[in-house]
């Protein structure tokens, strides 16, 4: 009997309880061990980059904010920074402080969310319930400060749209105090809880060399000893004015990634306290032109999941000529295949979850050249509708009552 016969293929995704978004991981399994993983992305493509080219800069702000449901503020800030750089806008200091404050609050809610998801992936639902209960504190705070729990809509070209009142500052500190208390408990838990340690330690190994070679970013890279953080290396917002430590770890595994994220939570609390203490007075907005002058800019931003890069090219009109987003998950997916090598099936969910993936941020259109069908071609909207109608007719479903766009009945 050859080896081939012992390999079982199991599909994890596109629909699978371990994945919060549709992506496909085809696993070759030898017993309980993973033999090979084939990833396929693209189920979440929404055409946001193209959509940005057809909208004005202000409209784009709200569109890029919807790239991600968790780090929405990261994308919005990264985009607005690039546009402001092209337009040469000097953003008021108070606005920068508010942006940084909300960014750090977002990091807190993102990391707490991650901790809960990680707990769920290893069957530790109690951790999920606890962290998500605590995360609610920061979510409510964000809603109070910005008006929304996610997709804050706070940024605008040249500043922010909402000021933080002096009465709100103490409530921020109060939330931070209670969250710090809880985070200390989770740190203690991570150090002492045996089953948690057993499931996380030595799982999803990624050496420092591999992390560098595969271009990992964010907590994934920092847990492999790569000392990189855009907030310190290329400061933006108010990060020049605050002192913080870049948390790194040398475990190089999922446990290390947990340690880094917990450490970053503690750092985030310290940053928030400094920002609240030193919040400058003054305006929160400068007037931005409707037409952005010709030029291009790359904006780097340390999102909770890693470095987020936005590229914007302006051509002097109200709309950008090109917007390109490199979400942190795209940088980290390469590392996942490496981490899964020689792993167990049981570790697959936590290894994938450990990069804190956001597939909808990552997905781009994939062009598939079908063998035998000739060169690639573009379908118009009418053609596509007709194709769909024919497809269902062949299956015996008659969609003739559906009217196509343009008024013509199928």
């Amino acid at each position, binding site marked *: 009997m050859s080896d081939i016969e012992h390999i*079982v*293929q*199991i*599909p994890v995704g596109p629909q*699978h*309880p*371990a994945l919060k978004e549709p992506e496909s991981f085809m696993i070759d*399994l030898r017993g*309980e061990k993973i033999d090979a993983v084939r990833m396929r992305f693209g189920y979440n493509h929404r055409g946001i980059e193209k959509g940005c080219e057809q909208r004005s800069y202000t409209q784009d702000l709200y569109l890029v904010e919807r790239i991600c449901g968790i780090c929405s503020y990261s994308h919005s800030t990264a985009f607005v920074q690039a546009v402001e750089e092209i337009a040469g806008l000097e953003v008021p200091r108070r606005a920068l402080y508010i942006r940084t404050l909300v960014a750090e609050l977002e990091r807190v809610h993102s990391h707490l969310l991650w901790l809960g998801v990680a*707990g*769920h*992936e*290893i*069957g*530790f*639902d*109690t*951790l999920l*319930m*606890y962290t998500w*209960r605590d995360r609610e504190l920061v979510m409510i705070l964000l809603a109070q400060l910005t008006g929304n729990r996610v997709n804050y809509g706070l940024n605008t070209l040249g500043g922010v749209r909402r000021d933080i009142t002096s009465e709100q500052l103490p409530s921020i500190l109060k939330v931070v105090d209670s969250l710090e208390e809880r985070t200390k408990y989770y740190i203690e838990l991570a150090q002492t*809880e045996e*089953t*948690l340690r*057993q*499931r996380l330690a030595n799982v999803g190994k990624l050496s420092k060399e591999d992390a560098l070679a595969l271009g990992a970013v964010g907590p994934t890279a920092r847990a492999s000893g790569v000392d990189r953080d855009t907030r310190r290396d290329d400061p933006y917002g108010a990060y020049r004015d605050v002192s913080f430590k870049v948390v790194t770890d040398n475990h190089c595994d999922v446990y290390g990634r947990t340690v880094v994220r917990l450490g970053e939570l503690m750092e985030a609390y310290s940053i928030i306290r400094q920002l609240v203490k030193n919040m400058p007075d003054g305006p929160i907005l400068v007037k931005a032109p409707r037409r952005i002058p010709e030029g291009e800019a790359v904006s780097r931003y340390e999102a909770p999941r890693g470095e987020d890069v936005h590229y914007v090219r302006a051509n002097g009109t109200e709309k950008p000529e090109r917007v390109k987003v490199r979400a942190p998950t795209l940088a980290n997916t390469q590392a996942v295949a490496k981490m899964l090598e020689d792993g*167990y*099936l*049981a*570790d*697959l*969910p936590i290894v994938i979850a450990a990069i804190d993936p956001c597939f909808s941020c990552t997905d781009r259109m994939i062009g598939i050249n079908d063998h035998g069908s000739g060169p690639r071609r573009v379908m118009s909207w009418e053609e596509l509708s007709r194709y769909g109608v024919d497809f269902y007719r062949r299956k015996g479903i008659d969609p003739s009552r559906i009217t196509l766009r343009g008024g013509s009945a199928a």
Partner: protein
Amino acid sequence: MTAAAALFQMLIFPGFFFLIILGLAGQFVDRKLYARLQNRVGPPWFQPVADFFKLLGKESVIPEEADKRMFTLAPVFALGAVIASSFYIPLWNAKPLPAFEGDLLVVLYLLLIPTLTFFLGGWYSRSIFSTLGAVRSITQLFAYEIPLLIAVISPALLANTWSISGMVQYYTSHPGRWLFNLIGLAVAMVTLLGKLEKVPFDIPEAETEIVAGTFTEYSGRFLAFFRLAIDTEAIVSASLVAAVFLPFGFGLAPWLAFLVYLAKILAILAVLALLRTVFARLRLDQMINFCWKVVAPIAFLQVLVDLVVKELL
């Protein structure tokens, strides 16, 4: 005893019907405690009943690839085996319906059948997730069953009988001696988590890996009966542990003995709920290592303790 009385005992009280009510109540206790320990509200008391009837009303899909007979029979066999094993366990009256020398092993054997039906049901579903869950079920079985067996037979060694009612009589006439079996009780509790496939040993139905394992393809009334079998199995296993390791309260007045029995079951279920709250799911290899290298030696220690105690007393 007339045939009608025996039939009543088997079907209504304390047999089939009673056990099912108790199983659903046990599921509620487990879910509510689990939820409260996690800072959640938890389900209302009628939720397990509502879930059961909801599932009965749902469409029961049998996969085209599946072996129809095995697929449909597995839940029935699981429930049947669990109920059958309960007849031999003294619940609160010292003597169950049919008691004989060796019924301890019969009970353990019958309680093994549900796990086998998980394997068969999953295997004949022909779905990849079910198959993996089935294989994991049976692999896990070999890890926890032996320590459980050793733990349960060591009190029997001390009592010098292979019948559960005999053990109950021995420990009732020698009050306090059950305290020698506390190690065995701990081992039994840990292995019960494996038998009932609860965290940290819920590997065969690890949701984030293999969806629902064995039960992935099950729906409607088949799933309802599988779940009922698992709930009842929890009660019957707890009753076995109560009879073997906590053999007190059997000589009391019937209603008092009944309350003591309920208290014991409740305590065991509460400990199981607590254990599944505080742990993460282990990996299959870690679970097997743990069971063979830690739990099994502790179980043997219990045997040793019982043998020494028997010599000394």
